[in-house]
């Protein structure tokens, strides 16, 4: 399935400065694997050493958090948007 992965600002420097990447994938896990294969620098920002998604990074399929779906096994449909949303804290400074 052709899906679009939205890259958040803090991670764009590791994804060739792109704001989104189009990929073929059947599940969210497939899409993230394809993404980190293409952009190996992204891997350590998204995954901890034991291969799990970092907890300050959330992943959504369209507007649903994958933690409340089937996590990385969540199936994706043609044209779905996968969003990576890390925490940001800027406000005053």
């Amino acid at each position, binding site marked *: 399935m052709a899906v679009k992965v939205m890259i958040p600002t*803090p991670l764009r420097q590791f994804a060739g400065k792109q704001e989104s990447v189009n990929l073929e994938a059947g599940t969210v896990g497939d899409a993230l694997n394809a993404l980190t294969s293409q952009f190996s620098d992204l891997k350590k920002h998204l995954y901890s050493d034991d291969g799990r998604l970092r907890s*300050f990074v*959330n992943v959504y399929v369209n507007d649903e958090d994958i933690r409340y779906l089937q996590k990385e096994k969540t199936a994706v449909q043609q044209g779905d948007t996968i*969003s990576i949303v*890390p925490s940001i*804290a800027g*406000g*005053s*400074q």
Partner: protein
Amino acid sequence: MATRLTQPVPASAAEPALSKQEVLRYSRHLIMPEVGMDGQLKLKRAKVLMIGSGGLGAPLGLYLAAAGVGRLGIVDFDTVDFTNLQRQVTFGTSDVGRKKLEAASERLSNLNPEIQIDTFETRLTSDNALDILRDYDIVVDGTDNFPTRYLVNDACVLLGKPNVYGSIFRFEGQASIFGYPGGPCYRCLYPEPPPPGLVPSCAEGGVLGVLPGIIGCIQAMETIKLIIGKGDSLVGRLLLFDALGMRFRELKLRKNPECPVCGEHPAVTKLIDYAEFCGIRGEEAPAQTASVPEITPKQLKQRLDRGDDLYILDVRETHEYQICNLNGQLIPLGELPKRVSELDSSREIVAHCRSGKRSAEAVEFLTKAGFRKIWNLKGGILAWSDDVDPSVPKY
């Protein structure tokens, strides 16, 4: 779904009415059926606490004061800095050097003398947060660091107060309402903070000045809607704003039944050490940069004047080079691994950046790559401007 405060702003024994002056001041609210006298009185009785009076706090404070929020508390211990004026529009050039609280209360009182402004010139900590927040109905988080965001979140959940959240990074913003009873909290979304140093601050990453203006206004709007009990709030919704694309997106936020703070069996029942939670030990730079060989700007100048053959490596970005430079060879830090072959390890290299942080990383990297004659310019080009050549602009 319209949300209202579960403890609606209570009518006091002496029910505040609006004076003739206030009726005129707020006439544009009063003629709207969605606000009316009812809504304006709710605003007058409302007590809102702003944490932080900076980029987000500026438009927030201005619009809450303008709207007639009867009691506005502001927590900020900082001083107005020249670099704040690019976005912190509560302040003017003549305020540089003044305490932000003083300058902000003056500005907001001038805008609306009818409201009460409480000032808390202190850093919010686990020791004082519950006491400071207790008296207010709504808390608005305009802070700039992870430990405080987690502190504010936890305190709001423990006290049952909604936390109107906004945050920004360069040209992206987020907004939501956490801690609304029955709704998710910040830890439902992000159970853990990122390790220190992974997400740069505005001073390091930069920010489009007007961006916190937009997000701060959204926070003001959500606060006012909560007070008057109208419209659909951002409870359970994460609003994402991309300024460059001028696009708003929205993601669903769910309350996590296993959330350590607001879940069914909370593990956190009192405020913790948030600096420790976020992995920060003290305010100093991380230990590894202290062990990097350094050269001060004055020492560098002396050696260059002596005719020493030093190779200056600038690890900043192209657009920074254009602001000012030391005629160094520019290899941005992110490109260093790919371009390390351009460097001659037999030469003495002095690496520099803006303030000395990125170049310390570069020196560490190059040392691991086998470079032996490599120094970090302590304090970067900022220190060069201070100590050697004041004609070099600081930024």
